[in-house]
């Protein structure tokens, strides 16, 4: 059972890299604790900026810092970052093309029973629709580390969503296949494809194992790079397998499922089913309970796959 959550890994990478790279700046909006960045703030006080609870301000300040050569990482709850500061993300980050990485913590329904104010089930739709904004949903801690190390190498805007709770490992210390902006093949298969991102990769992987025991070969793609979408991998899945199931911790409109459907429809029409959250406030519950209620589970993936394959 892994107990290290993805946000902890982000802290660890930044604490380490900031020792030698004095241009790294982390910004928090009274969120250093919930972002697991208290250690960073303590180790690198001169490369840390606190803005208080002001999500518009934090994004603009980061853009100003970045315009003067800083590599900025803004860590704030995904629910606020993706909506309250959406215009700052659009104008000061994406449009001005500043080196700001927006890290949406406690993404999706991580905050469970706290209600729709605290859910970010529309962040692909809001931030992903902004030109020049990339969207990443890393699945486990190993992939989060690889993604962070890659993002430190470029100077372009990006939004990264991580959940609040530890996620079971998909990869391992010595086996984390990662190519920037290319989906990771988690499970090979030629009958059907599941495309997942973030916390949904685990049930996708579990479903593939379950289907395997029934003689069905299920391909699982970890589409951590939601934008730019790895369209090559999607096209191959459409060409080589009979159907695609997308599972996502996001609403249907403007999510990964709609992006995959749009591409498949235009390039190689194949049945695409999207398992996602509804167009209404979700029920109260811990995120696994919310996932179960709406069918974002390995069992429902298996059931859906069996129905699709007749």
């Amino acid at each position, binding site marked *: 059972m892994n107990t290290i959550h993805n946000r902890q890994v982000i802290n660890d990478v930044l604490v380490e890299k900031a020792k030698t790279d004095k241009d790294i*700046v982390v910004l928090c909006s009274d969120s250093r604790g919930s972002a697991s960045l208290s250690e960073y703030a303590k180790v690198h006080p*001169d*490369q840390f*900026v606190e*803005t*208080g609870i*002001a999500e*518009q*301000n934090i994004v*603009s*300040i*980061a*853009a*100003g*810092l*970045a*315009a*003067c*050569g*800083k590599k900025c990482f803004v860590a704030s709850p995904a629910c606020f970052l993706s909506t309250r500061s959406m*215009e*700052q993300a659009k*104008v*000061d980050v994406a*449009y*001005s*093309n*500043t080196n700001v990485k927006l890290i949406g913590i406690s993404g999706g329904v991580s905050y469970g029973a706290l209600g729709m104010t605290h859910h970010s089930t529309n962040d692909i739709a809001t931030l992903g629709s902004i030109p020049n904004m990339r969207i990443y949903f890393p699945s486990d801690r190993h992939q989060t580390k690889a993604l962070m190390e890659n993002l430190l190498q470029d100077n372009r805007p990006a939004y990264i969503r991580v959940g609040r709770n530890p996620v079971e490992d998909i990869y391992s210390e010595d086996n984390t296949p990662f190519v920037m902006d290319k989906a990771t093949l988690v499970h090979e298969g030629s009958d059907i494809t599941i495309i997942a991102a973030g916390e949904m990769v685990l049930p996708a992987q579990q479903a593939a194992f379950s289907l395997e025991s029934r003689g069905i070969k299920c391909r699982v793609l970890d589409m951590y790079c939601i934008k730019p979408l790895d369209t090559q991998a999607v096209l191959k899945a459409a060409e080589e397998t009979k159907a695609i199931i997308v599972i996502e911790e996001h609403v249907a409109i403007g999510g990964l499922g709609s992006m995959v459907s749009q591409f498949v429809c235009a390039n190689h029409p194949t049945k695409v089913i999207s398992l996602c959250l509804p167009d209404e406030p979700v029920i109260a519950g811990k995120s696994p309970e919310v996932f179960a209620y709406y069918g974002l589970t390995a069992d429902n993936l298996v059931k859906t796959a069996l129905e699709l394959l007749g």
Partner: protein
Amino acid sequence: MENLKARTFEIRQDILDTIVNCKAGHIGGDFSVTDILATLYFKQMNIDPQNPRDPNRDRMILSKGHSVEALYSVLANRGFFPRADLKTVSAYCSKYIGHPTNKVAGIEMNSGSLGHGLSVSVGMALAAKMDKASYRVYVVIGDGELAEGSVWEGMMAGAHYKLDNLCAVVDRNGLQISGTTEDVMSHENLDERWASFGWHVIHAVGNDTDSLDAAFETAKTVKGMPTVIIADTIKGYGVSFMENSVPWHHKVPSADEYIKATAELSARRSAAL
């Protein structure tokens, strides 16, 4: 030093020509902010038009981005790009679009949506402090823009981080698109508001380059806190029939009005000489 006051009327003529040429623009705010920008770019800021990305340059953010014709005209007159380029403002596929863009030499950030510039400038001033660099950061805000809540977030942060390398200027012309600022959303006790947020407040005659120059000099001496210059301006300054007139927020002059405005600007330039 050349006669800057006379120059401001030449810049206004460029603004007028640009707006008449592209049939769009915000002439009232352009004319109220011209002297502020001219004082910054011709007298105050450490900038080199030949090296616009010099890391040690002073920075200026035009938060009231709709006054872009004034910014383009000042930058062209200062030598950042040829004045002939002003003929392409807002033209098909031109890089000189209707709000500031960092694709143009001398412009730091894209703006146009109000309420962003102060926070961006706070980030720039923080970067200077982190790097122990000596450059100063300026941000020009419209008075109507002060209704945007994000301005006040930036105000808090500027004072919190004691950014004495940051100087904001409020173009206090008292008008906005729907009427007077006091009717639309009042800013009574504006000085006290800024002061209570921890800013040093200076007043300047906002259409007088000498008054502005003196205010910017004073701002440089203020330590441990950011400074705001409340620049009392006249919207449409320089052309009598545009002054203090709400419709001239973004009206395009007719052929007749163009001739009259040109004559007035020319007369004002001569008087300044």
